[in-house]
């Protein structure tokens, strides 16, 4: 084999090796997709005061849905919320606050007092974890149409519903949708995604910000 042929075939191999090493050393940027706009809302929280989508603008919010007399499935989902709340110090979201909002689709029974008692039973920190509901028509627009989390009241007053967690960033954009399932830990997955989101927020400006924008356009999704 002539020297020329060796050099010609060697260059691409060297480039691939160098690129692979750079990839391993610098690690690719990961971002969560900007799925769609989260709904705007006006709800009533456990304090009796209103809770609006503007109140949480600038904060990362994890939503889940249920009702206080729901039983096992809501207990399981709330355990996930509790698990995330307890392990929040494992993720770094910089100056951005992480909040939790549990939306009840049973405004008739779930009065602020009921929601307050429910939160207390779960040991929820009221400053960080809100329990809220709204007037039925608005609630349907917010939860069913906006969050795309379906629910329906059965004849006996209980609800069948889509057990979802929705992660929304400070700009009011949905960044993660998780359907409750028992095979893998939602807690671990959501915490991992909070970490990715936190890193993006901390690097939102300057050259790093441009790199993160590029990651969105090249779909570097986890």
């Amino acid at each position, binding site marked *: 084999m002539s020297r020329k042929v060796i050099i010609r075939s060697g260059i691409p191999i060297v480039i691939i090796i160098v690129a692979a090493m750079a990839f391993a050393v610098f690690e690719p940027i990961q971002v969560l997709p900007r799925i769609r706009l989260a709904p*705007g*809302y006006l709800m009533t929280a456990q304090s009796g005061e209103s809770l609006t989508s503007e109140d949480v603008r600038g904060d990362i919010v994890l939503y889940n849905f249920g009702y206080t007399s729901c039983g096992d499935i809501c207990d399981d989902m709330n355990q996930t919320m509790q698990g995330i709340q307890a392990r929040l110090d494992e993720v770094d979201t910089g100056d951005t606050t992480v909040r939790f909002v549990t939306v009840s689709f049973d405004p008739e029974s779930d009065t602020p007092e009921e929601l307050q008692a429910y939160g207390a039973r779960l040991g929820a920190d009221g400053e960080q974890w809100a329990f809220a509901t709204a007037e039925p028509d608005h609630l349907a627009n917010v939860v069913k149409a906006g969050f795309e989390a379906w629910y329906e009241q059965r004849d006996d007053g209980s609800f069948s519903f889509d057990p979802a967690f929705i992660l929304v960033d400070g700009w009011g954009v949905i960044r993660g949708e998780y359907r409750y399932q028992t095979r893998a830990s939602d807690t671990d997955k959501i915490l991992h995604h909070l970490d990715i989101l936190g890193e993006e927020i901390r690097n939102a400006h300057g050259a790093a910000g*441009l790199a993160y924008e590029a990651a*969105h356009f090249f779909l570097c999704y986890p």
Partner: protein
Amino acid sequence: MSTTARRVLIGVAVAILGAFVALTFVLPRFQPHVFSGSVIQSNDKAPRVDLQASNGETVRIADFEGEVVVLYFGYTFCPDVCPTTLSKLSKAMDLLGEKAEDVQVIMVSVDPERDTPEALAEYVEYFHPDFMGITGELSAVDRVATLYGVYYEKEEGSAATGYLVNHTATVMVIDREGYLKLVLPFEGTAEQIAADIDYFLG
């Protein structure tokens, strides 16, 4: 100085000049556009709008396919936020010049009780003759506002103004294919708004 040394010096000078020209004039042209708002990359078309214009006709986003739609939520009794935003949008249209012909600015009323279609048309046309105002039943307005991330709430005003309506003051940009692409904050300038709309005009 030997000929070789002179050649090297000239070569270095040309390289420095070349690098200077590239960094100053060429590279900035290839800089990506930096949006002043938050980008959305949804696979679904923009949420459905089914509201009425002043001529009584139903307005849908799909009617404007091929144009960039700029959607804003406000009301005619709005004391400060809406006039500020509509003025900025009007200035942005001026900055876009002829390109503005491919842009439709629409204000959705979050106060359908007081904003008749006629009053709404008169109000928005005061800011720009091509602006459009749409409204409808409260239930229809609630659905549209909610899906575009807009909160609104009646609030006590003075005897002169009547009640006020607190509302989200963002501006939504929908591209020529009907996808919601950008949410602009209230703080953006007319220049930033024009630059962002221009990006979607291509």
